[in-house]
């Protein structure tokens, strides 16, 4: 095996599971340590630079980081990364943060960029480009910026003022806003004097069940989930009937049913086609819905809206079970039982959403594929019309906020390169830093003691109070003391075990001390599969890399399975020659402009 090239920043990046899994690659362990130190401002700014909406995401993120968290592989549950992010936002000092945020550039650089849709993708592009002097024009058909963060996420999960503040940080950078203005034609924008156009219009069309019997007759009692949530958010809808069925198994369905409970729905049910375990909704969102007395009925396929005398009286469903073929593909097979009837007064359909670009003419150089999505360069987000860039749900279909932010960062870089006359493929490398944490024989500048605590629960508001008002936030957030305990559960996976083969005397001290049997000194093998079989502890997690060092004096090699390394530093404490050292690896995705001083 070739020794691992740790000069390639992606090797150690991959070891930081949470950061690697995050679409925006937020340096998670770095900000968690700052939270433990009570340095909430710095923790907030690290987040702000990387994911732009820490307060929003600390409440609503899909948290791809948490299933990836190494703690989840040695302990029962991962670190509550998302809710720690909220802690940074909750306890930051607003005044000090504002003093450290970038200011609008005093001299404009003469280039104009139009941003269509004021959701997280466009706002990220705006934030990244504003400090460089671009004149930014933000268009949206709503009265306020935020996009789906405002219209889709109910206030009991995301208070409006949290969103307003973080959107405000961006708009205050001198963005020219054109609200309540629906862009009807891309051609018009192209013919205006914009140097580049960014499309961040999301996936605005909610799926319907157009062909289901009774759909047309039931129409006054049937709502499309995302449209209904938007109407609630903007105050157009204030009540719902007592008996409500929500169709769908994603997070939007969860938001719909919980909102319905708050608007007068007493008997609210979620009915979904797939088995409970395979629903798209995040487990914690399902849990929250069920805690509010909302049953989730799975394996039921909608068959008919039952309308009597012009009134919706209920829905009929076919019972199914999931059958899997050899390749694991699922099909829902009817069980043959008689159809199930559930009475209801209103139905909310939340079965997914689609992209729609009715405002983009098909002859302005932007090519669409057979699924109606723009043909884009996956790295640069540039469309077939070099002046037009896409990001967020508008780029590759519905995803989530943090993905939209990650797209925004890259699109901003592309726009900046494009308007500077450089190749959009000339991507800047990440900013990295690798520094020893050694302070003394048994002393490190990070807290290397591994806590045994179980994951802490975020306290919730009293259910009765919460259900009375849709604006009462359900999750109360960690108090600082609990936040500290939870932060201490982080294993500091960014503090890397760096091995210097030339110094190793093969005394085995590290092998003997390693609590999780990560380290091995073995005879070399040609391929990784053979090597994995020779290690002290099973090394069967192929997503996790092997760190190979050597060859050493005896001809053997050092092999470390990164899978369950606790980053406790005992190998380095036990090493007599400092062949092992604990070094903090900071990895930052480069943005279009340096933003704030950290």
């Amino acid at each position, binding site marked *: 095996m070739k020794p691992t090239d740790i000069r390639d920043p992606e090797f150690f990046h991959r070891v930081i599971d949470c950061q690697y899994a995050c679409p925006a690659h937020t340096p998670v362990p770095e900000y968690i340590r700052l939270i433990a130190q009570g340095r909430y401002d710095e923790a907030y700014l690290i987040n702000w630079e990387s994911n732009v909406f820490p307060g929003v995401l600390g409440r609503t993120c899909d948290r791809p980081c948490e299933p990836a968290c190494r703690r989840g*592989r*040695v*302990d029962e549950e991962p670190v509550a990364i998302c809710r720690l992010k909220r802690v940074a936002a909750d306890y930051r000092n607003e005044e000090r943060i504002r003093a450290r945020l970038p200011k609008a550039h005093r001299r404009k650089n003469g280039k104009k960029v139009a941003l269509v849709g004021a959701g997280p993708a466009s706002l990220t592009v705006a934030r990244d480009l504003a400090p460089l002097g671009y004149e930014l024009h933000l268009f949206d058909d709503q009265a306020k910026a935020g996009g789906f963060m405002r219209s889709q996420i109910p206030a009991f999960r995301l208070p409006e003022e949290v969103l307003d503040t973080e959107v405000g940080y961006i708009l205050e950078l001198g963005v020219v806003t054109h609200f309540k203005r629906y862009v009807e034609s891309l051609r018009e924008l192209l013919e205006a004097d914009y140097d580049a156009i960014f499309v961040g219009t999301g996936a605005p069309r909610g799926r319907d069940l157009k062909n289901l019997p009774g759909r047309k007759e039931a129409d006054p009692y049937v709502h499309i989930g995302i449209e209904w949530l938007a109407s609630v958010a903007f105050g157009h809808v204030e009540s719902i009937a007592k008996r409500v069925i929500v169709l769908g198994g994603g997070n939007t369905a969860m938001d719909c049913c919980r909102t319905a409970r708050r608007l007068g729905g007493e008997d609210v049910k979620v009915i979904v086609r797939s088995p409970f375990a395979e629903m798209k909704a995040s487990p914690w969102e399902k849990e929250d819905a069920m805690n509010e007395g909302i049953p989730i009925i799975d394996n039921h396929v909608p068959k008919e809206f039952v309308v009597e005398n012009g009134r919706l009286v209920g829905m009929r469903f076919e019972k199914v079970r999931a059958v899997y073929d050899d390749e694991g593909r699922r099909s829902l097979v009817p069980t043959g039982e008689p159809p199930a009837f559930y009475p209801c007064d209103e139905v909310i359909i939340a079965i997914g959403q689609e992209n729609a670009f009715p405002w983009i003419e098909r002859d302005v150089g932007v090519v669409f594929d057979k699924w109606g999505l723009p043909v884009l360069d996956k790295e640069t987000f540039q469309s077939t019309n070099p002046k037009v860039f896409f990001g967020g749900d508008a780029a590759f279909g519905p995803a989530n906020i943090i993905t939209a932010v990650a797209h925004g960062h890259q699109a901003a870089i592309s726009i900046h390169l494009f308007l500077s006359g450089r190749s959009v493929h000339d991507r800047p490398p990440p900013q990295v830093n690798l520094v020893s944490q050694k302070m*003394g*024989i*048994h*002393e490190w500048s990070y807290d*290397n*003691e*591994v806590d*045994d605590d179980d994951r802490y629960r975020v306290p919730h508001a009293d259910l009765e109070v919460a259900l009375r008002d849709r604006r009462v936030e359900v999750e109360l957030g960690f108090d600082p003391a609990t936040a500290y305990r939870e932060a201490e559960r982080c294993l500091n996976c960014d503090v890397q075990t760096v091995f210097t083969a030339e110094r190793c*005397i*093969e*005394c*085995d*001290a590290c*092998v*003997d*001390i390693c*609590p*999780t*049997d*990560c380290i091995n000194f073995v005879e070399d093998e040609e391929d990784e599969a053979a090597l994995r079989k020779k290690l002290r*502890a*099973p090394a*069967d997690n192929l997503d996790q890399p092997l760190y190979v060092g050597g060859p050493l*004096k*005896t001809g053997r090699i050092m092999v470390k399975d990164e899978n*369950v390394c*606790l980053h*406790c*530093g*005992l190998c380095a*404490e*036990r*090493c*007599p*020659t400092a062949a092992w050292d604990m070094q903090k690896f900071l990895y930052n995705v480069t943005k279009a402009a340096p933003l704030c001083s950290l």
Partner: protein
Amino acid sequence: MTYIRPNFRHPALPRNELGYTRRDYEGALSTLCAGCGHDSVSGAIIQACFELAIPPHRVGKLSGIGCSSKTPTYFLGRSHGFNTVHGRMPSVATGAALANRELVYIGVSGDGDTASIGLGQFAHVIRRNLDMLYIVENNGCYGLTKGQDSATADVGSASKKGVPNPYPPIDLCAMALDLGATFVARSFSGDKRQLVPLIKAGIAHRGFAFIDVISPCVTFNNTPQSTKSYDYVREHLASTGTLDFVPVRQEITADYEAGYTEEVTLHDGSVIHLYKEPDLDVHDRHAALRAIREHKEAGRILTGLLYVDPDSADLHEVLQTVKTPLRDLTAKELCPGSRALDAINASKR
């Protein structure tokens, strides 16, 4: 600052027949110097006891004084232990073994504890063929008192102080062979592949099993002029061959390499597979002594199994001791009454 070992372990550690993982045989966190060979020997003992599936509470671990003698704290944390007076581990081990022969006895000593202050006790425990495993962690210096040359340091070897040692060394393996030890081996702390099967065989052996483990002192005796440094030992290592230990209750499966040149069946029915030169005879005491001497003259350190006599009579057999541990004997058996005494007296008249 931390001396705290995390409590998390690899979630998929293999388990032995008792359902224990290797981690169930660990002890407290070592306070020896980072890189000390002794910690590797502890690691090897842990591995051997795990693989043999010895119930931890069926082990007695004994030691004297010194860095090496601290190590029983760092392995088998659920076993019985006794730290004796300097050099007096053999007599306490003898007493313990006579009182309860059902435990596995593992003695750990150092070159000072065995070759200097404890030389007399060492000689007699060999002569008596006490059923125990006696490991010397041999680093050629007194590490606990700042690295003075010990009685096993080679002539001309220099520790950190830099002054070559003028006195000839005691070769503990040669001495053990001379005094009639029934299992003699030498190994190196940096070679667990050899050391672990040796420890397993030594535990299974009935009678006195002796392993001299060269275990470098990283702090005082890992210098370029030392003959007990990691580098010197690795460069001058010679071996009688490799070996596998096959416990009695384990079916012989393909896990063990084929092609061994000799098979030694121990008293309890377990087997040692030796992979060695066919002309080396591990049952010939004189040949073993000769081989040690010849390698030494050629500047090499001969490791591996040097001698074994699987069928010797151990101290219990010689003394015809009672099989039951003393603590399980009742007053009735211990004080059989005046009639029994009269019978004994009558037999002597």
